[in-house]
Each structure stands twice: as C-alpha cells, then as structure tokens.
C-alpha cells in the first residue's frame, strides 16, 4: 500500500503540507479534494517522484510504474494525438490500438491526424487522459482530469476512466464533489495547511 506519514513540504517560508497522513486504496480509487493552495498537486508530485518531502515518509512507491494526467495537458505540440500516446507506450503498442482508444473518448478521424496544437482544449484533455490510462502503470495520478470537458464529453470520459482504472491504484484529485459522488467514493479533504480529514 502506498502511504504518506507525517509528510511536510515547504516552498520557502510557506508550509504547503504539514504532517500529512494519507493512505491510497491498494488497487482502487482514492479521491482527494481541497481548496486552492491546500497542497493537492504537491501530493501528486510526491507520489510521481517529481518532488522529495522536506519531512515525513512516502512509502510503497518502490518499483511502481507511474502514469499521470497533470493539471495542464503537457502534450508534445508537434506530435499527433497518436504520436503523443505512443511516445509513452513505445512500439510494443500498435497505432491501431491507440486509435481505437482515442475513438472511445470521442476523438474523430480528422482530429487524429492533426498535430495536437491544432486540437481544441477538450480534445487535448482527452489525449492526455488516454495517454495516462493506456500506460502500463501500477499507480495512476489524475490531477483535475476532467477540467475543460463539456458535460457530454465528461460523462463519456468518466466512464472510460472508471473502466480503465479498475484494479489499479489511482488517485483522483478534484474540486468537484459531484465527481467523487459519481465514482461512489467518499473523498479525503485536504485542509488549508495540507492535513487530511475524511469528508463529511
């Protein structure tokens, strides 16, 4: 199980996380909520190995293959949607498999042959989501993954996420209680100083 115990993180004088304890559901979905500045993205960075805590322990990450949807799309602008997904998958996964997954989240043929810089915000978001969920990962971190999707696309993508994350340790970070409710998960609330408490 992946756990955070007494994790503290500072940026200069600002304490972002102050003795945070957090357990991720092994092989399941954990939903993390909290106001801006409560340290949600910092938790994501710690789990993804992009930051080291100033204090406390993050355990259970050894040998874990990771994937993520970041708050920003973080796509290679000159590559197509398929090219972006295959960048993280390698040649072991064929282009047709990637095309098939991208079609499942509503990307049509025309959008698949364009560089992603020519796609709409919602289309780019879906490419980032497919990239993370097709990756051969043990831990998936989804940092506000449904941001910028319209209602119809959001419903489609949420169903896709639920199916694809089944049986894999997943952290979903969101501002929207309705998203946690849709997944049937009681979210963990991060307070302003980055300590966790179960949501009421």
């Amino acid at each position: 199980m992946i756990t955070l115990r007494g994790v503290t993180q500072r940026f200069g004088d600002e304490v972002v996380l102050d003795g945070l304890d957090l357990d991720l559901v092994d092989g399941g979905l954990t939903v993390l909520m909290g106001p801006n500045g409560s340290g949600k993205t910092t938790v994501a960075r710690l789990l993804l190995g992009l930051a080291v805590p100033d204090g406390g322990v993050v355990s259970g990450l050894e040998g874990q293959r990771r994937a993520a949807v970041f708050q920003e799309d973080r796509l290679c602008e000159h590559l197509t949607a398929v090219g972006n997904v295959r960048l993280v998958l390698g040649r072991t996964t064929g282009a047709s498999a990637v095309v098939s997954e991208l079609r499942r989240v509503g990307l049509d043929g025309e959008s698949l042959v364009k560089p992603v810089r020519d796609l709409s915000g919602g289309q780019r978001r879906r490419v980032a989501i497919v990239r993370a969920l097709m990756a051969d990962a043990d831990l998936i971190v989804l940092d506000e993954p449904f941001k910028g999707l319209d209602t119809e696309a959001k419903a489609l993508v949420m169903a896709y996420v639920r199916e694809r994350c089944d049986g894999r340790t997943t952290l979903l970070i969101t501002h929207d209680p309705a998203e946690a409710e849709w997944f049937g998960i009681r979210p963990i609330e991060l307070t302003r100083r980055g300590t966790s408490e179960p949501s009421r």
Partner: protein
Amino acid sequence: MTSTTYPSASTRSLTWRFARPALVLAFWVGVWQVATVVVHQEILLVSPAGVLVRLAELIPTAGFWGTIGHSFVRISAGFLLAALAGVLGAALAATSRVVDALATPLVTAIRSTPVVSFIILVLMWADSGQLAFVISFLMVLPIIYTNVLEGIRHRDRSLLDVATVFGVPLLRRLPAIDVPAVLPFFVAGCKIGVGLAWKSGIAAEVIGLPRGSIGEQLYQAKLFLSTADLFAWTVVIVAVSYGFERLVLALLTRVQIRLSRGRTT
C-alpha cells in the same frame, strides 16, 4: 464597354518576391558604378563591369575551381566539426556540472581571444594547410556551444516531467521533446556561425598563405595591386559563403518541418 483583368494578389506577391532582391541588387550595383565614375581610378575602385570581366576570365580555368575547393573543404569541415563538437559539448555540460564548470571559462576564453592570436599560434604549431580548418572550427565552436546549451536549458520542464513519470527512454525522448526545443537555438547559431567561419577562415588564409587557397589569391591581388582580382575573389567568397549558408539552413529547415509535421503513428 471594355473590361480590365488585374493580376491576382498571389501573382503580385510572387512577382514582388523575385523582383525585390533584383531591384535591391540593381540599386547597389548602380551606386557602385556611380562611385567608380566619381573616383575614376580603376586601381582604387574597379567598376562592376570590370569585376564581371575578370570573373568571366577566371571561371573557365581549372585553377579557379581548385582554389575554391581548397578553401571550401577546409572552412566547411571546420564549421561542421565545430557544430558537432558544440552540440556534444553542450549536451555534456547540461548533464554534468563538472563539465559545465570546466568548459564555460574555456569557451569564454576562445570567444574573447582575437582571431589573429589563434592564427599566429596555429602557424607556430602546425602546417598552414590546416589553418583555415582550425580557425573556422575555433570561431564557430563557442557560438554553437553557447546557443545549444541555452536551448537545452530552455526545454519545457513540464514535458521533461512527463518523460520522467512515464519512464520514456532517452532515444524516444530526444526527437519528441529535446530536439524540437533545441533546434531553433542551433539554427540561430548556425546562421551566425557560417558567415563567421568564412570570414575568419579567409582572414587566416590571407595571413598564413596556404598554397592554392582563396586567401593566397587575395594576398597576391594586393601584392600586384590587382583591384579587379581582389573584387572578383571577394564576390566569389560572398557567393560561396551565401550558398553554403543557404544549404545548411535548407537542411535544418527540412528537419524542422519534419519535426513540426509530427508523427501520425
């Protein structure tokens, strides 16, 4: 009733694209011609027609092409090796603080040293035949190194994080993330570097006088007060340097276009 057909905007634009450089060239050749009439001494300022006549005499000779080949091979080889060494050096400096700490003062010293000092040093250490090669290499290296290192440091941090999280191997990351970020800096370095390689390489040849080089021809033109030869060879240097620059930039543009088109599979 009569009707008038006007050329389309695209035809006008295409015509202007080709006509403009010709008009600019014609203007400056005109200024040159007026200056020769005013000065009225061919030994000081030869006319455009005089240069054309001298070029027409030189071009059919085997010696002319041999001389260009001699300088071209050495200067372009110096430039290409500097481009390669600059890229590799910058890549190493970006990954190792020790290499960066050691290389940065060296590159600064090379950049700040007058080219004449290097020319004299090389003449003391080696054969003048290799002079243009060594000098163009030394002049271009700091530019490519500095530009590429700057490009490496300006890569998109957020995309590098993606590569780290997903464990993208270096060989797959390079063409997708690193090269597109660094290439504009490399192209800018090459634009400056090509011209500098030719200027410094020819200057080195004029001082070192390697046999059969363009520099030797310039020196002889000065020695025999042959202004027509001096102008003709200068025109040749400008033309070859410009042609080489266009060739290098065309190759790099092709790489940029291929990268910007992206991959469909």
